[in-house]
């Protein structure tokens, strides 16, 4: 009888630990993925695309003439 109770307790505890571990991992995943996304949207990451914009822009050689969306 006691070993049945012990087994049930062990299964329940293992299950709970499993769920907690998975939740933690997912949480860390979410944080990490969000951070990666934000980093990939940073001005430094976008520099190559912005440089292409400047190549396309007919009056890019006149720096005063350009709108700067990032403000100053």
């Amino acid at each position, binding site marked *: 009888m006691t070993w049945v109770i012990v087994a049930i307790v062990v299964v329940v505890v293992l299950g709970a630990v499993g769920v907690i571990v998975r939740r933690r991992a997912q949480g860390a995943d979410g944080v990490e993925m969000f951070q990666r*996304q*934000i*980093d990939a*949207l940073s*001005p430094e990451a*976008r520099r190559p695309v912005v440089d292409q*914009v400047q190549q*396309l822009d007919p009056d890019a050689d006149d720096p005063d003439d350009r*709108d700067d*969306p990032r403000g100053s």
Partner: protein
Amino acid sequence: MARDLAIDLGTANTLVYMKGRGIVLNEPSVIALNRQTGEVLATGREAWQMIGRTPGYIVAVRPLRGGAITDFEITERMIRLLLQRVGVSRFTRPKVVICVPSAITEVERRAVTDAARRAGAADANLIEQPMAAAIGADLPIDEPVGNMVIDIGGGTSETAVISLGGIVALEAVRVGSFDIDAAIQNYVRREHGIAIGERTAEEIKVAIGSADPTVDENQAEVRGRDLMTGLPKTVVLSPEEIRFAIEDVVSSIIASVIRCLAKAPPELSQDFLVRGMYLVGGGGLLRGLAQRIERETSVPVRMSNVPLEAVVLGAGHVIEHYEALKGMFMGVRR
């Protein structure tokens, strides 16, 4: 090895960005077909030149006109031809990111991604045009500040508020610069009794169209077919009458911008006053439009320096950073 692609499948213009290369294709979203056999006769600029000038058996159409996919079969063929032209085959299976009007339905979205997969894409995902435009226009969307983008294209006008890499508020209407062309066509027919084609109407818009009075306004001479006599006829149009003709379309576009401003959370609204709103899309080039939006909203409006390419460049950035940015695809965000 296939190079991944980003496609701006616009109602007026299609642009393709190839990973590591940049923009490799930029042409009108037009396809010309043989009405009887259904055979494709031309696409892009060549098909565009045929609009309104074809014999009865040829039809030159814009399958995405109106910001909705009116003909799935033709759209699929257009996507297939587009991918073939940039070198996609059964053996080179690139990943593809496609920008579509945010107003398209679930069924239309599926049609576009399925078409791309059938045409050889290993994986096809969609991204909203204003989001891509904000990335391409270099707005600081990685920061927790309100970035407002207005994209006025041929068939759609979309305004979005973006903060921390996500869309906070969005307002999309199926009204765009094509509707301005149509309004000019109707006006000239009604008031001057002559019929003009859609390409002529577009030329008038670009030459003398405006949303607000501007300095150096000129008149334009227009040739069309007299509705009474059937003979060719020339009339002179003034900028004021064109302004009057397109007023309804212009004000409905501005109304959608105002609705988007009203949807934005108050914390972000303050940012617009300082940072302004960003205008992209060919329709945004209409003379006096930025000035008019500014006047009616009291928010400064800045014009992108690459209004026609911002969307595809933004999508191109996503394809360059595919793994990090795949959470931004339509339908992936929670």
